[in-house]
């Protein structure tokens, strides 16, 4: 079985994000970029499936600028077999990404798609769900455990108030939550091997789908600065502050 893992190049999770002065977006110039952490988890899961003998090939796909090749290399160094880059400098919306992935899936015919539940830049949490809908495949989102036997996957999901276990027929789309696994570090020999693994470079035009954006960004602003806390002397002062200053009681 082939596993397909979409991976996105995003602003590194350690970077303190700054809004551009003209409020059109966030500043990406000279900012460290890395693989979306949830996609790392997805890649790790796919590689583990291969190591367990469940999967035979792990294909990673990225949609993004030329530098997203490096993101693919990172996934290849973790153990994926080959990469596909759909090169574009446009910042595509989730629906366009899902349509492109659907087209890739039509060519690749994977048995399962394992992907991050969301990308930490836009935090849309949409592509996995849209992709499943477009394909008319079952979906199991926020997975914290995946077990595949034969043509079904048993997926444990993290939901409010506990865990839910779903059984889905394959092929299906599964999106990874934080606790699914702990991604491995790329070892030096695997970084070297990754250099020799193939990456196919495509363009969005190759797939004949409409990738036009449908949303307009009006304005991007920083979240309001958090106010420092204050100590109160007693319950009476607390109640008075909640009533008169915070206006919550």
């Amino acid at each position, binding site marked *: 079985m082939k596993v397909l893992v979409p991976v996105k190049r995003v602003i590194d999770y350690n970077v303190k994000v700054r809004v551009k002065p003209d409020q059109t977006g966030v500043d990406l110039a000279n900012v460290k970029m890395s693989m979306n952490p949830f996609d790392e988890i997805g890649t790790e899961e796919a590689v583990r499936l291969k190591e367990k003998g469940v999967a035979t090939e792990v294909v990673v796909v990225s949609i993004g600028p030329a*530098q997203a090749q*490096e993101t693919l*290399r*990172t996934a290849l*160094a973790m153990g994926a077999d080959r990469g596909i880059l759909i090169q574009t400098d446009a910042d595509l919306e989730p629906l366009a990404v899902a349509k492109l992935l659907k087209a890739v899936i039509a060519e690749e015919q994977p048995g399962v798609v394992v992907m991050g539940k969301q990308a930490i830049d836009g935090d849309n949490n949409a592509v996995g769900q849209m992709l499943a809908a477009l394909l008319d495949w079952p979906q199991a989102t926020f997975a914290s455990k995946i077990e595949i036997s034969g043509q079904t996957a048993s997926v444990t999901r993290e939901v409010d108030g506990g865990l839910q276990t779903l059984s889905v027929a394959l092929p299906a789309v599964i999106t990874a939550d934080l606790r699914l696994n702990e991604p491995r*570090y*790329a*070892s*030096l*020999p*695997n*970084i*070297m091997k990754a*250099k020799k693994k193939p990456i196919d470079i495509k363009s969005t035009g190759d797939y004949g789908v409409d990738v036009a954006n449908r949303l307009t960004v009006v304005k991007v602003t920083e979240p309001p600065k958090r106010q420092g806390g204050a100590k109160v002397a007693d319950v009476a002062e607390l109640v008075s502050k909640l009533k008169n200053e915070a206006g919550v009681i």
Partner: protein
Amino acid sequence: MSGFWLSDEQEAIREGVARVCADFDDEYWRETDETGRFPEAFVAAMAEGGWLGVAMPESVGGAGLGLTEASIVMQTVAESGAGFSGASAIHLNIFGPMPIVKFGTEAQKSVSLPRIISGEDKMCFAVTEPNSGLDTSSLETRAVRTNEGYRINGRKIWTTSAQRANKILIIARTTPKEEARKPTDGLSLFFADFDRSRIDAKPIPKMGRKAVECNTLFIDDLLVPHDALIGEEGQGFKYLLQGLNPERVLFAVESVGLGRAALRKAAQYAKERVVFGRPIGQNQGIQHPLAKAWAELEAANLLAFKAAALHDAGRDCGAEANAAKYLGAEAGFNACEASVLAHGGMGYAKEYDVERYFREAMIARIAPVSREMILNFIAERVLGLPKSY
């Protein structure tokens, strides 16, 4: 870094190493320094990730990368807060075997290198002697050729990791100095088993880096087979020289890494510590020494990576490697000193780690070659002044 910044692949290497190092926190290194226990778990993790083979040929299981990449690996280790306690624990695996790579026979390479890369074999490198010091051609350890092999007698000092090593790379005289054509002829290099029935290794209590020991070796009739000889008999000094420039570059970048670790701590502390009603880091008296240390570290680092790039391109890098080791060691030391001072009394407390860095920073100023000998070399070879030593 053959340009002014890391390539994506080099960045991946830096990140890979940084992730391994992240599992070994300040507490871990503080404890190795206090107990003197060798950081086995750290070395095992680095070996497991294949990092020890960064500069070893692919044919023996290494990555076949250059001094530049080896420098990135070692700097990342030191910079993580592991300092020389971490860097010196693997330093010898990275470039120690270079004479074998360059001058060893196929058999020597295929037998010894994979075991060094995997960390199964632990080597030490015995050059310095009590009676000759930096004047290597005057070393007194003798190796006499017999039918069974070479019989080695003599003393070495400062040999790092001799307690832990099961292999020794050793330089000894095979032709007495007065019979050799030149003083630097007649020295030979051997890679042999560390035979504890013949070598008595006594640890030297020392200032820092307690977890990675240094020793005095008393070598009494150590018999090594003929095939322990690396390259040709009598050419050992030449082989040694080949490895010196890379080693200097590594010391330079390790020292810069250590200095960066210290600065990181100092800047953090200076932001948080409030006296006289404001963070101490708001005073230029604290800011300027730290800012100056940063500038010095980055300048030294550029020269070190230039030397590495020259080396990797097969060009001469003697002057640059030496100057980088000098500048890197001084910049690392200055950064550590400024960081201790910025911490006030806490700079002297083990809990804040900078006192450990400060003690370790002295190593790169002394070893593997002193500041004075570097300046002697530059004066003579670059400036054309008469040889002074």
